[in-house]
């Protein structure tokens, strides 16, 4: 029987079938649904760790104990987890360990489009890359076998179009292996697991040997396969790009790589000898191309296809046509010639939801005219017009450290850091201690909507609920911040604009570092809604102040503003900002 699954669902299913018992992750698009789905299988422990490094260490611990483990994160999460990834490459493990890196070419929901295939080469460990959901399921099992056979963590790389695309997956008739009858026996072996220099020096040659053996193994691995076709063109590719290329070059010979590192040199040589031209089609960096060239094989690739952005069948066809590799069909020529009527279609960027508590905060910050060093989450949308009240956003947890640095540089501006609750638990704590320790008068605002909203409402250490929906200890932000030594701490409701503005002014005028917790649960999560207000068209002077909130239901009509009751959440911010009292419930 077949079932439609996204790549993420299939990875979770594959992990369950392969007897993975411990899963750890921090949410991040496009990886999030992997752990979400895995957590629903019986007999497993699955958790949202506070950040990716913690998740990685949790997976490593389970694998050290001899239990199969799955760790998943988005591509930039691997940057956070990298320190751990590098040591576990040296130590190896006992139970299989798979790290899923979900890359995001095209940056649908990310701050960069780094190519994480390079991590495999950098950390010296094998990497597999599936090209649909069925492969996603199977490759988890293969990765775990390789992990145990070669004593190494294995990375499984997906991209947005694998993680978030659905295709049929064969359901297994067999039951997954049950829990072991005895608790796992932890074997103490300091020479292998204590990476002090003396032991680490002994491990490095083992790592180099491991990669050599894996390269030999790659020659025989069935997921690296030649698909015979016309011998004029031989295409080397992997993952989602394989699917696009198959559409555009139905006749070509393919070398489809399931293991993208280390590469099977003999197989590549044999493939190259069979075809007239070797064409490497890969998204982002010339990862295969450079290695193939190093083998002394002539290949084309990045002279034809871009290093930037996401690929698609359309893009591959356009590039290949421009390079003269394929000819344009008459239908295509005709379609290309059909110029659409020149109509301006305004863009539609993402925007804070109606009723979002972040809106009140950014309204207040804009009015105060402060410099806002920001962070990543829904609240980053406060940087967009008309709110335009966030001035930096680099990576998770950067806000507070950057604000401290800006303050230390001695700028005239009043400096505020804005960070979400989940982001604070991820990586906000250490820079916050630094503000105290190294003394700057930065005001840190934690936007506490009591959930990880951006990635689809995951729990975190402040919510008191686990991924598997059990009640647990909740870290109280206010108590935490006070306990480390902040004395000026206020908790405010960002729906109450006047009060928040007053508190902000108090904090900015004091000379000590301080924290404001702007607390208002995410309305998309609580699904709470109040009565939408209406505009009295006669009282409305059309000043546009309410429109400056950038709230979707507020719309410009002929000579006044209207509110769409379907879209409106009834938060009442517009009532507060209207100076002619034209908006009421």
């Amino acid at each position: 029987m077949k079932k439609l699954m996204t790549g993420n669902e299939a990875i979770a299913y594959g992990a369950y079938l392969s007897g993975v018992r411990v899963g750890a992750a921090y949410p991040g698009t496009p990886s999030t649904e992997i752990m979400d789905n895995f957590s629903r299988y019986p007999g497993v422990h699955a958790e949202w760790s506070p950040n990716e490094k913690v998740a990685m260490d949790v997976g490593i611990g389970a694998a050290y104990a001899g239990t199969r483990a799955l760790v998943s994160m988005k591509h930039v999460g691997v940057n956070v987890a990298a320190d751990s990834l590098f040591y576990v490459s040296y130590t190896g493990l006992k139970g299989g360990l798979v790290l899923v890196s979900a890359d995001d070419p095209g940056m649908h929901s990310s701050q960069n489009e780094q190519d994480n295939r390079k991590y495999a080469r950098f950390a010296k460990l094998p990497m597999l890359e599936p090209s649909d959901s069925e492969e996603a399921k199977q490759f988890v099992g293969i990765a775990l076998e390789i992990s145990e056979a070669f004593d190494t963590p294995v990375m499984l790389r997906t991209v947005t179009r694998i993680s978030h695309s659905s295709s049929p997956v064969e359901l297994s008739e067999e039951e997954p292996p049950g829990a072991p009858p005895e608790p796992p026996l932890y074997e103490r072996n300091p020479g292998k697991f204590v990476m002090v220099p003396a032991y680490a020096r002994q491990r490095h040659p083992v790592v180099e040997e491991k990669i050599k053996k894996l390269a030999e193994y790659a020659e025989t691995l069935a997921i690296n396969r030649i698909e015979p076709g016309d011998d004029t063109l031989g295409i080397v590719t992997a993952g989602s790009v394989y699917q696009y290329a198959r559409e555009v070059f139905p006749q070509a010979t393919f070398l489809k790589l399931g293991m993208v590192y280390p590469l099977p040199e003999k197989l590549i040589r044999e493939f190259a000898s069979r075809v007239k031209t070797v064409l490497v089609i890969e998204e982002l960096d010339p990862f295969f191309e450079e290695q193939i060239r190093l083998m002394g094989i002539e290949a084309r690739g990045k002279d034809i296809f871009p290093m930037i952005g996401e690929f698609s069948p359309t893009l591959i066809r356009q590039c290949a046509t421009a390079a003269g590799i394929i000819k344009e069909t008459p239908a295509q020529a005709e379609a290309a010639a059909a110029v659409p009527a020149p109509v301006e279609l305004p863009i539609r960027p993402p925007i804070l939801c109606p009723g979002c508590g972040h809106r009140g905060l950014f309204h207040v910050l804009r009015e105060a005219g402060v410099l806002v060093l920001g962070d990543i989450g829904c609240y980053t949308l406060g940087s967009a017009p008309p709110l335009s009240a966030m001035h930096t956003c680099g990576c998770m947890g950067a806000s507070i450290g950057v604000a401290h640095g800006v303050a230390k540089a001695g700028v005239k501006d009043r400096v505020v850091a804005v960070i979400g609750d989940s982001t604070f638990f991820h990586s906000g704590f250490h820079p916050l201690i630094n503000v105290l320790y190294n003394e700057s008068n930065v005001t840190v605002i934690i936007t506490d909507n009591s959930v990880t909203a951006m990635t689809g409402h995951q729990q975190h250490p402040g919510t008191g609920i686990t991924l598997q929906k059990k009640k647990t200890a909740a870290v109280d932000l206010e108590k935490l911040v006070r306990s480390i030594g902040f004395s000026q701490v206020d908790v405010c409701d960002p729906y109450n604009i006047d009060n928040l503005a007053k508190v902000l002014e108090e904090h900015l005028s004091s000379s000590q570092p301080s924290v404001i917790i702007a607390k208002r649960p995410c309305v998309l999560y609580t699904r709470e809604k109040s009565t939408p207000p209406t505009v009295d068209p006669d009282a409305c002077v059309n000043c546009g102040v309410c429109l400056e909130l950038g709230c979707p239901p507020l719309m410009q009509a002929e000579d006044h503003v209207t509110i769409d009751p379907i879209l409106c959440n009834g938060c009442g911010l517009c009532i507060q900002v209207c100076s002619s009292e034209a908006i009421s419930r």
Partner: protein
Amino acid sequence: MKKVDILMAGVGGQGTILASNILSEVGLELGYDVKKAEVHGMAQRGGTVESHVRWGEKVYSPVIEQGEVDILLGFEMLESGRWSAYLKKDAVIIINRYRIPPPAVNLGKARYPSEEEIESTLKSGSQNILWINATEIAKELGNPAMVGVVLLGVLSKHLGGAEDVWLGVIKRMVPPKFQELNTKAFLAGRQI
């Protein structure tokens, strides 16, 4: 087995994901190979959303190529207007007559295009345009969130497949307390 490529365009929060899930399951039930692509995350916050659903004997890419769309299902007028380059010459275009102005329009910094303008840009792709008041119909049924299922009802007439198959999938995919409403919405669309 003829391949069918369907593109859904709308605004985050309009229910394109449920609709594309239903459409994919129906394809599988009718014996097709099926692939579906969509993007979650940031884009859902009131931004542009697109869903690709492909039925065929054997489907490789989950993303549809330009010039290959057989049916464009537009949940919102402006979003529908963006896809003319993707349409096959005889593509069927089904558009919900409903506007969600983007921020720049609300602020008076851009103009929302007229129905005629959207038609004229789409017509460079295909002449075959069907306007549906799906949001109105959904509102009359008591829940504007039913737009997607109303549109699926319209789509079902063009795609074939027995009514039972469609309704069976819908019932399976929505919570029990919404089954009746969804059935009504689907049939209302199918009658158009």
